[in-house]
């Protein structure tokens, strides 16, 4: 994956440059909708395509300096890159009781992060993991297929159907607000995290995502996080998402269960057997 990512950095970086120019011109995307996206047959902005975040939010959604990775043997190849946070104002308003839990998560990242076990990553983390995802847009359903873990979610447009149960990827109901796709996500379990830094939520999590085209090859992605059991007030993350421009871009399999089995089941292997 790392190679794959490196190989595409130039293309993505170019898109990033274009987007950065756009963002520079329009710091408040929501207010000044200068860009008019191409339309689908039903007149909605066309979000179809393969997209990817280009940031280090999966390491830590807050500001963080570079630091050594968890494995000595991997040296510089798998250490932690620095990153500007994606949290608005950089502060996450944890309730006092939740601060300790975040710290504990962070300290026990390697055993506690659901990513390590190849669990479904939840929303919004799935969006900014360092893997592409693809949007299939129709008037009734929007399917988001993520390369990581083969995760996916179905967004029911303008639906009042309730979730039949709690889930890893949430229950997504969408509608259009002008040129913005708004997705209201509920019915989460309390098992997923926001990043490898141990930022977490409870099963009271309520996520509102806003996807707004800002150029042919970039979306503005804004997420509001609300969880009264963990946070004292709603807070926001924001980042651009870039189109994968390779002519032959396609999602490949990253069915990572087999990469986690030794870790998860190794102690239960028959001792004499290899």
């Amino acid at each position: 994956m790392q190679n794959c990512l490196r190989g595409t950095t130039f293309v993505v970086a170019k898109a990033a440059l274009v987007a950065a120019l756009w963002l520079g011109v329009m710091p408040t995307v929501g207010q000044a909708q200068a860009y008019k996206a191409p339309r689908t047959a039903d007149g909605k902005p066309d979000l179809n395509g393969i997209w990817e975040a280009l940031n280090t939010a999966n390491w830590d959604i807050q500001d963080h300096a570079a630091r050594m990775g968890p494995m000595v043997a991997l040296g510089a190849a798998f250490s932690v890159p620095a990153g500007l946070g994606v949290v608005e104002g950089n502060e996450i308003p944890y309730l006092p009781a939740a601060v300790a839990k975040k710290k504990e998560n962070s300290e026990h990242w390697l055993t506690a992060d659901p990513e390590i076990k190849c669990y479904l990553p939840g929303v919004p983390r799935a969006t900014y993991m360092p893997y592409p995802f693809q949007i299939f847009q129709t008037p009734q359903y929007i399917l988001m297929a993520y390369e990581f873990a083969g995760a996916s979610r179905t967004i029911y447009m303008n639906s009042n159907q309730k979730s039949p149960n709690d889930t890893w990827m949430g229950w997504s109901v969408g509608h259009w607000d002008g040129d913005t796709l708004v997705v209201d996500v509920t019915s989460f379990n309390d098992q997923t995290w926001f990043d490898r830094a141990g930022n977490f939520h409870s099963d009271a999590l309520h996520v509102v995502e806003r996807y707004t085209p800002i150029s042919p090859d970039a979306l503005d992605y804004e997420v509001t996080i609300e969880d009264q059991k963990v946070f004292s007030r709603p807070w926001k993350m924001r980042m651009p998402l870039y189109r994968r421009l390779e002519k032959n871009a396609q999602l490949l399999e990253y069915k990572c269960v087999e990469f986690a089995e030794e870790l998860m089941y190794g102690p239960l292997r028959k001792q004499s057997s290899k």
Partner: protein
Amino acid sequence: MSHRFLASMSALPVVIAIALLAPVRAAGQVQSAAEATPTVKTWTVPRTPDGQPDLQGIWSNGTLTPLERPRELAGKQFFTEQEAAEYEKRVLEHNNADRRDNQDAEADVALAYNNFWYDRGTKIVPTRRTSLIVDPPDGRIPPLTPEAHKREAARAEARHGRGAADSWEDRNLGERCLTRGAPKLPGGYNNNFLILQGPGYVAILQEMIHEVRVIPLDGRPHVSQNIRQWLGDSRGHWEGNTLVVDTTDFRDEIRSNAFNCCGGAGANLHLVERFTRVDNDTINYQYTVDDPTTFTRPWTVAVPLTKTPGPIYEYACHEGNYGMVGILSGARAEEKAAEEAAKTGPR
């Protein structure tokens, strides 16, 4: 709904589940006679805005028809209407996991998933064929090639001395939550599919283990053989009103998939699927398995996809795989008990 088990109170949740999940069909609607007969009514295939036949929506391939024709039905390609009804009744009774007529512990554990969890459908395929395999005519997976026999023997040899659960690698791909394969055969539950069509793509979400198949329609070549995938690499095109999907680049390990569509085919599998919408509620679906290093001839399966209201459920397989921990722990505990018994036993 005249089946006896449905009348019992304990089956009430099943009735509800079936009412919720069963394909919606207008009463009295004639089911299309599938493979041979194209629709003759005035129905015309709906189209997407860009003119493709519209396959979109949530579909189920649940059916009581077995993949292979049971031996006792050799020579019988189709049921009569009455035979079909009797067969369905028999299968439903046999599958009824709410039975507790044999009350020893082992039988009880084997029925741990009671009927509430199952959603196989209640009918055989509308053609009343006795197998999903339509070719060869005997409804059976064709014989293996000599090469495949040799390979199987070598594999059995390599497994010699291993237990059923020495490691997770001794368990099948489905139990490990790695894949249920593409295409996914009808099974006990979660037989649902969401099909969406975007510009240049068809996406098929298989509810079972949330596997998404992305099928580009732009004529691009397959990825190189260096990239082998559990679901292969699919490319699609339209032949008239039929979506034809060509898939290669499978991983060889799909052979060991107990839930496999393709009966032990491996890396050389060339899969060709055909989707044809024949009425509002039905897609005629066929796939052909061609792996000359495994089978003496290609073979073809036909199973209709029937519209179902949904929604698609999240099947988080790996995340809830307590079964794997249980299987491995159980095997280790048995070994330990056997060791203890050997120490103290013969005295």
